[in-house]
């Protein structure tokens, strides 16, 4: 282990066609930590994740992962380096069974690591273990979210990207997802989390970046950001005081 952050993004500029969404993002994700990106809709949180993955090729800047420059890698190659995504809206394969969804995740990811078995991963999720042979389309939103996390975990990633994992879930399920993130972090996982729910984001995080209009406008340890009422109010329109 080194002190170098696992993921390091410098001066990232990226967008779609001629539209620049990211105007130069710098961020670090140290090993074993949970880092969250928060911000209003459309400030570039998802685009940041997509650029890291290679779905949206950056036009400027560098992305370094575990000492390797991954700036220009395609999504499949980025995944092979050991970065797994739990995407927005979960995107489980609707026609594949729970087991198959996890199996296909196991085919991906790094080739040079030992991966947990499909059964072992499914067993970790109570509500998935009960539905091994159900198709993805027939699961509830919470179950699909767990399946998306399981599909990412089975590839034994070094870095887990979570994109809005609590979106559209009932409060009780949000709690479950929160607990899962904590568990993963306790086991030493490194997580970059994008989250709309500020409470969840601050609770889960070690370190927080606030994005606005494609730039990092504020950053700091989670407890400091949680206390910075004026910042939260200005960029997110919320207050943690009450």
């Amino acid at each position, binding site marked *: 282990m080194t002190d170098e952050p696992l993921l390091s993004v410098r001066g990232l500029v990226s967008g779609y066609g001629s539209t620049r969404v990211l105007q130069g993002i710098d961020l670090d994700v140290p090993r074993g930590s949970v880092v969250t990106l928060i911000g209003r809709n459309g400030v570039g949180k998802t685009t940041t994740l997509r650029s890291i993955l290679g779905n949206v090729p950056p036009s400027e800047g560098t992305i370094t992962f575990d000492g390797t420059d991954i700036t220009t890698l395609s*999504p499949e190659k980025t995944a092979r380096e050991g970065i797994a995504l739990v995407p927005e809206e979960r995107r489980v394969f609707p026609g594949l069974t729970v087991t198959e969804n996890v199996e296909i995740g196991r085919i991906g990811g790094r080739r040079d690591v030992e991966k947990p078995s499909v059964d072992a991963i499914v067993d970790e999720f109570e509500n998935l273990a009960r539905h091994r042979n159900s198709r993805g389309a027939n699961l509830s939103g919470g179950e699909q979210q767990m399946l998306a996390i399981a599909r990412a975990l089975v590839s034994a990633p070094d870095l887990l990207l979570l994109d809005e994992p609590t979106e559209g879930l009932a409060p009780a399920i949000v709690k479950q997802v929160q607990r899962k993130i904590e568990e993963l972090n306790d086991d030493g996982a490194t997580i970059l989390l994008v989250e709309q729910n500020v409470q969840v984001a601050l609770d889960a995080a070690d370190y927080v970046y606030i994005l606005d209009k494609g730039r990092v406008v504020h950053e700091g340890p989670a407890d400091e950001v949680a206390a910075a009422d004026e910042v939260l109010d200005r960029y997110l329109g919320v207050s943690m005081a009450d």
Partner: protein
Amino acid sequence: MSVASAVAEQVLNGLVVGMVYVLLAAGLSIIFGVMDVINFAHGELFALGAYFAFAIAGPLGGAGFWVALVVAPLLVGVVGMGIERLTVKRLYGRDPLYHILLTFGLVLIINDLITSVWGKSAQPFPVPSVLDQPVALFGFNYSLYNYGIIVFGSALALGTWLLLNRTRFGMIIRAGSEDREMVRTLGINIDRYYTLTFGFGAALAGVAGIVLGAYQNVSPTMGSSVIIPAFVIVVLGGLGSFRGAVVGGLFVGLVQTFARTYTPFLEGLIVFLLMIAVLVVKPTGLFGTSVGAGDHHDGALLHGSGGGVLSAETRAKLGYAGVGALLIVPLLAEVTGVTYSVTLLEDILIWALFALSLDLVLGYAGLVSLGHTLFYGVGAYASVLTLMHVSPSVFVALVVAVAVCAAIAWGVGYLSIRVSGVFFAMITLGFAELFYNAVFKFDFTGGSDGLFGVDAFYGLAGLGIDPGEFTVPLGPFVLDGGVVQYYFLLAVVVGSYLLARRLIRAPFGSVLQSIRESEERASFIGYDVTAYKRRAFVVSGGLAGLAGGLFAANNGYVAPSFLHWINSGEVIVMTVLGGMGTLYGPMLGAGVFVAAEDVLSSYIDQWQLVIGVLFVLFVIFVPRGLVSLPQTVADHPIFESAVGDRVGEQAGVTDPEVDRHE
């Protein structure tokens, strides 16, 4: 033979044909389900399988068939993978229409290669002697080979099902058909699987070709005769559904066989009637779901849009000059004695009108009418029948042709426009095939001969010109009735163009284009999207009918070939070649295509191959058509500095890159 055993034999015959269909449709359906590619070349891969086997088995003698049965499909698979790598792959992300166009070009290429290697006539491909004998089962004799087909086909279908549902390969394929970007994000190189899938589908088609080749014979037309039924099966069963392909294939095989024996009149019709009936009741087909492939057609259609470095003014001048030149051609032809040029120009004008009609729906409403020759053919029949039975006046005949076609377009549009995209394409193709097969059945349409020897009178109520008796002495030359026909045709085509242009520049045209850009947004603004599309389709059908009616009236005959799907393919080729969404582009495309066909076919035997290759290159590299060439050239770095400023004024070319990332 008892009734029971006669029925049993029909069932077996039906299953034999059905098995061939299953293998063919399964490959087609998998390729569509996984890659959104509508592979028109599938029939040619089928024929290629038969010919490869024929070539391998012949020299090897007795055991040759078995060697061929293994080797030929593998070869076809390799050809399929090559096709995917070199051509199909380049078009992923574009609208599925481009795959239809591309594979249509491939049909021409492969078919021409087959005829140049193995000749144009059908050849016997003997069944191995071991299988070439009857066996007595259930109390009657039936060919062992046919039993073999049923068993072998079932085993292969089962194997395919297992491959798709019980293997890692199949799992990735299924996942890819649902969400390819997610599969990539997991770290799986889906492109490699696409190539393998295409190869696998092609190999299945190859097997089907061998099986049928030995059941009947091998012939260069075997591909084009099965491709349409195969599409019907895929649509009937549900696009992308393997179960649909199996059930649909067997069902169509049985229905066809029984119809041939017990209701000969319905043979050739019943399958299309069934398809239409199923789609009217359940637009997604028997086992189709709306989940998956159909949902992420995010590629944009590429339109010609403007004339590159040519300003609107220059284009207008060129237009006038073109019409002016067309006006003096008959005189020049008379003077120089090259009268053939007039015939060729008449052909071009007819196709230009036909292509113009297609552009209204394809280029402006985004509707891929795959059976547009339906209107061309029906217009021709309506025109000839009117001339024969109602009035000798060409005006009456054309009015009837337009009216009948507009009415049919309304009916077809009513049934098909509520289902979008690929289904619309297939339903229009189904209707065209229905009419194609129907004209063979009736006496009043002249059966397979068509109707001949009709003379049109260019006037009304006795006032006008009879081309048969028309002569104008002009110095040493004599202008005959052909000139009247030519000028009449030219006037109608120019008039139709001006009408179409007026329509597109009116609010109606703007709404159509907004629908093409985004159906959802157009409907949010409050436009009845379906109604607008249907109206465009009616106008388009009427104009296509006019083109067919004109041809029939001018030439005095009509034949079933007017309704053959190849015409539908060719008119799409012309439209895209010229540049769709411009009206004049498709007309230009028609001119280039017909002239090229004419010139090439008189100098080289492999002209289809040349046209096919040119077309494939065009679809890949110049998808916006001929009218975009000046712009493409101007955008080239070498010329940019010279004409860059002019090009800047001509903004408005649809940029697919932007649309794709939305």
